[in-house]
């Protein structure tokens, strides 16, 4: 029987992919760091109940749920951060300088076009083209049929192309 997975291993192995997913969905380093930290907090709690299976699918379901919850929360209160976010943010180092620079320059146009998509389309194209998941993996993570994944990716790319034209 293999050793149980630890929170630190998850952060080390998957932290970068989760952060880049969060960055492209939220559109800024601070929110991306907050979302990533929320994912890892839930992973830490959830690991106690995790039963061996598809770890990737389990992890990305948590990640997707964090994004959806955060998105809903933000829609309700668009500008005022939650007080408990302050403590969580204190646990994080500042976003690396290269992230801050890139936020202001590289890929700004594409990022801006991404932010113009609905959350569903944005997440589908980010999972496919930034995280590098297959349609089946996306369907497992977002808990939607593969046909819906295909449709969202297609619509998302079309809208992105129009925005960039």
């Amino acid at each position, binding site marked *: 029987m293999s050793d149980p997975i630890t*929170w630190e291993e998850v*952060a080390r192995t998957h*932290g*970068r992919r*989760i*952060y*880049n997913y969060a*960055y*492209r969905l939220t559109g800024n*380093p601070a929110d991306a*760091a907050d979302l*990533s*930290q929320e994912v*890892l*907090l839930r992973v*830490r709690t959830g690991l106690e109940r995790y039963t061996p299976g598809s770890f990737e699918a389990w992890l990305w379901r948590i990640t997707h749920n964090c994004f959806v919850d955060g998105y809903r929360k933000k829609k309700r209160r668009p500008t005022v951060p939650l007080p408990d976010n302050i*403590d969580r943010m*204190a*646990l*994080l*180092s*500042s*976003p*690396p300088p*290269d*992230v801050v620079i*890139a936020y202001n320059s*590289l*890929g700004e146009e*594409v*990022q801006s076009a*991404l932010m113009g998509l609905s959350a569903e389309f944005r997440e589908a*194209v*980010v999972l*496919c*083209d*930034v995280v590098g998941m*297959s*349609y089946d993996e996306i369907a497992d993570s977002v808990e939607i049929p593969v046909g819906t994944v*295909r*449709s969202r*990716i*297609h*619509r998302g*790319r*079309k809208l*992105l*192309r129009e925005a*960039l034209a």
Partner: protein
Amino acid sequence: MTEHLGELLSARLDGELTSSEVRTVNDHLSGCSLCQNELTDLHSARAALRGLPTFEAPRFGLPRAAPPVIQPHRARKAVAVAAVAFVSFVSLATYQASQPTEISFSEVTETQLELNQEAPTLIPQIPEGSE
């Protein structure tokens, strides 16, 4: 051939079609400039996304441990202990207030010891014969 390929084009780019679907798509593409153009557009959008820079994640801190959950019976016990401690404190404070103000630490210790030793035990007065 009136129906265009639509989302099959994205699936083709991603290698998500079965071999028979690939044949169908390729057959259609060879004679449809509209779908060819759409494929080019989709390819550009996909390339723009895939060309985005990726970043190192910040260092994540260890999440705080959740505060311990106090069970109801433990909470009652905690209240009882706190009540006893409070009564002891008030008794001691009252006793000390009645003593001379200049008193050494050693004297306090001895006095406290005496107080503890001589503290009367409260025994409930139960009338004889009662049950």
